[in-house]
């Protein structure tokens, strides 16, 4: 088993390299340059000044050379300096170790995704089990319809409607961002409450729109399991239905969910780009959006690399979880 794990870990390296190579070329294929913000159709800049700027950013070199320069730095765990006019190291933008945890972008994105994953699991699993045990009943249909509405509704639209309802009309919740203005001077528990209020809408939106997958998979895998022989045996033993479902069937039905969780890491990071912009949350998704718009290549690459790493890591974790949960795989 250890050899298997070791092999999987080694595989991550070439996969990650492949991902960075492809990403690097794709973002350079998109028209536009980081220097455009200064130079395009700006009568105050001379062609010499433009060339000078491009040289400083190494944009005059072929893309493959630029990739070489980038990878050389990456080997030393250095993501380079941002091309935006502040020229800060990319890593400082994503994970500023001088600031409190809540002001580090990677942490914010990670926290929100983690919380929404927990909410999804807490709601989707019981919902899936319920739908399976009450298959084709009215409540099954209601549950199915609800999760599909969540799946189909555009998250930005739902977010705006909820902001109007809870923020403007009822005035219960703040509309955007992560903290209120006087946050720094609040006592600890007020800070926690302030954060919680700000996180309610974003986490609700991201969880509600992400319920469908987990609850549907839970439902179908449960349906499959309760038709198997060992469940019949358990029932024949005279065990109460509650124990049959939750002790025997549930554990077995959980296996596909583990895989799904590992795979969904990438999707969650992608989704962050959208709702961090709507809610004005200072996370990695927001930074990614701005960096793409200004063609800030080092920052874009930094975030992509971290995202790719987290996705691969998520998959690995899912494999390990699978092994722990399923003795059949462990035996192989």
């Amino acid at each position, binding site marked *: 088993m250890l050899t298997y794990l070791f092999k999987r870990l080694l595989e991550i390296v070439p996969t990650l390299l492949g991902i960075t190579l492809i990403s690097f070329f794709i973002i350079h294929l998109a028209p536009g340059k980081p220097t455009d913000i200064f130079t395009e159709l700006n009568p105050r800049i001379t062609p010499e000044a*433009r060339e000078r*700027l491009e040289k*400083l950013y190494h944009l005059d070199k072929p893309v493959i050379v630029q990739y070489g320069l980038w990878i050389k730095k990456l080997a030393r765990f250095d993501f380079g300096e941002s091309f935006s006019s502040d020229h800060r190291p990319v890593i400082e933008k994503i994970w500023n170790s001088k600031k409190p945890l809540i002001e580090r972008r990677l942490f914010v994105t990670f926290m929100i995704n983690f919380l929404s994953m927990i909410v999804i699991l807490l709601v989707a699993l019981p919902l899936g089990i319920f739908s399976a045990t009450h298959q084709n009943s009215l409540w099954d249909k209601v549950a199915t319809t609800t999760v599909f509405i969540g799946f189909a*509704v555009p998250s930005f639209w739902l977010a705006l409607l909820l902001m109007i309802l809870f923020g*403007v009309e009822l*005035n219960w919740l703040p*509309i955007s961002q992560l903290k209120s203005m006087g946050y720094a001077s609040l006592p600890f528990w007020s800070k926690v409450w302030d954060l919680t209020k700000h996180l309610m809408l974003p986490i609700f939106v991201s969880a509600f729109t992400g319920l469908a997958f987990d609850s549907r998979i839970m439902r179908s895998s449960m349906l499959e399991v309760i038709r198997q022989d060992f469940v019949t045996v358990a029932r024949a033993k005279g065990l109460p239905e509650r124990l049959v479902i939750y002790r025997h069937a549930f554990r077995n039905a959980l296996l596909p969910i583990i895989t799904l969780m590992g795979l969904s890491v990438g999707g969650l990071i992608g989704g962050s780009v959208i709702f961090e912009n709507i*809610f*004005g949350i200072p996370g990695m998704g927001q930074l990614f959006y701005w960096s793409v718009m200004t063609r800030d290549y080092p920052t874009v690459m930094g975030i992509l690399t971290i995202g790719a790493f987290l996705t691969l890591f998520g998959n690995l974790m899912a494999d390990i979880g699978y092994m722990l949960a399923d003795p059949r795989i462990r035996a192989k």
Partner: protein
Amino acid sequence: MRNTLTALAILSVAIFAFGCKGGPGAGGQESLNKAAGPPAYGDALIEGTIGEPTILIPMLSGDAASQDVAGLIFNGLVKYDTDLSIIGDLAESWDISKDGLTITFHLRKGVRWTDGKEFTAEDVKFGFDTITDKKTLTAYSEDFLQVKKAEVLDRYTFRVTYGKPYAPALASWGNLVVLPKHLLEGKDLTKGEFGRDPVGMGPYKLATWVPGQELTLESNHDYFAGRPYIDRFIYRIIPDTATMFLELQTGGVDMMGLNPIQYTKQTESEYFKNNFQKFRYPQFVYTYLGFNLKHPFFQDRRVRQAIAYAIDKKEIIDVVLFGLGSSATGPYVPHTWPYNPDVKKYPYDPARAKALLREAGWKDTDGDGILDKDGRPFRFTILTNMGNTLRMNTATIIQWRLAKVGIKVDIKVLEWSTFVNEFIDKRRFEAVILGWQISPDPDQYDIWYSKKTKEKEFNFVSYSNPEVDALLEKGRRTYNIEERKKAYFRIQEVLAEDLPYVFLYVPDATPIVNARFKGIRPSPIGITYNLPKWYVPGELQRHHLVP
């Protein structure tokens, strides 16, 4: 599936029913607009912005957000007055030598950086040396490279000498070049912390900067023009404009720019009238239809004039901008000193357009509805850039109007970089719809001078008129505002006659500000120029600092 749709419909109806109520406190409450008290210190102004500043050093920043905030932290030697004339800021006065080659600035005495050190001529020289340094990553060095010699005469006197008289140069001594020498000497400006923790001498100083969230500026009590009334200026970053508009209604934002729908429709309720003040003034931008003057169709001036007559500018403004703009007659903003109101205008007149085209030899000989000449139909393509709906809609309206006089127009929308690099720079276009940002200085040498037609230069329509060349040269070589005015007035007359562009419209800026802020004096250069003089009367103040 039908269930889903019904449920969705119910959900949205429910929420929209709430949404139409008109916001909290509608009616009932006494209008904030009427109440006005004496100026008082205190309160905070929260401006919403979609982008975060990157660096608060004016000479290094390229984006509008950075320049907005840096503008409150740094002052320059000179600044624009509300009528666009140049007045002193950190310089009390200046002398220009008779030959127009040297400018001697006499600086204000007793101005202090917010760390307590006095501001002197050495700081100006230091800023000048930095911006002209090849290693400095700046896009604004051009004006300063014209300087032959820069010298510090004494603590409060700074002199620059130019190779040729260069009128736009005076305005360049704004806030780009003033940096605290005692803090930055011998340091790498781009690498240091100064850009995120600057020390200036302007009305505000940076207190905190929470990335992705907000920048808080505190008033500078030591400000040489007097302590600003509003204690804190908060720049809140909300990337989505719909979200920002909701924040405006709940008090999370006091000031933001509105889009045309928000300005004309969504802010017309009683609630908005009582709690907010809206402003409207022309932006320093114009949109035009430019012709490639090398193209055989457009070499004849009568054809260009005919096209101008065939386009209804008012219709474009009403449809595309919801009426929030004015028709452009030349390359300057209405109500500013270089703007000449008495130039040839082209009211919508299709009959006149047809007559002019006939005169130029264009007739519909084969009866297909499209004019032709020497067997060639009058058909051309308008190019414009992707992502700008205003321009695309404008193109569509022009296409429809020109079809009525027998000209067939195709529209091609291109991604910005491709558009500039492959079509504008290589002159592969027949006509374009584009816009120019207008600098407050009227010098437009780079756009109209007949020799500025090389690749990457800006006279890409290849306009050439010796009279305009001479006037452009004259306008930038004298500091006398009356003489400059004469030159630029005449240029506008010639341009209106020659029509290298059909000048279409100048869109309006439409900001909204919470009504508790008083002392706002709208002017041609906008509303924020006198921000330090804005105030909130004592009883209306909303934000108080917790000690």
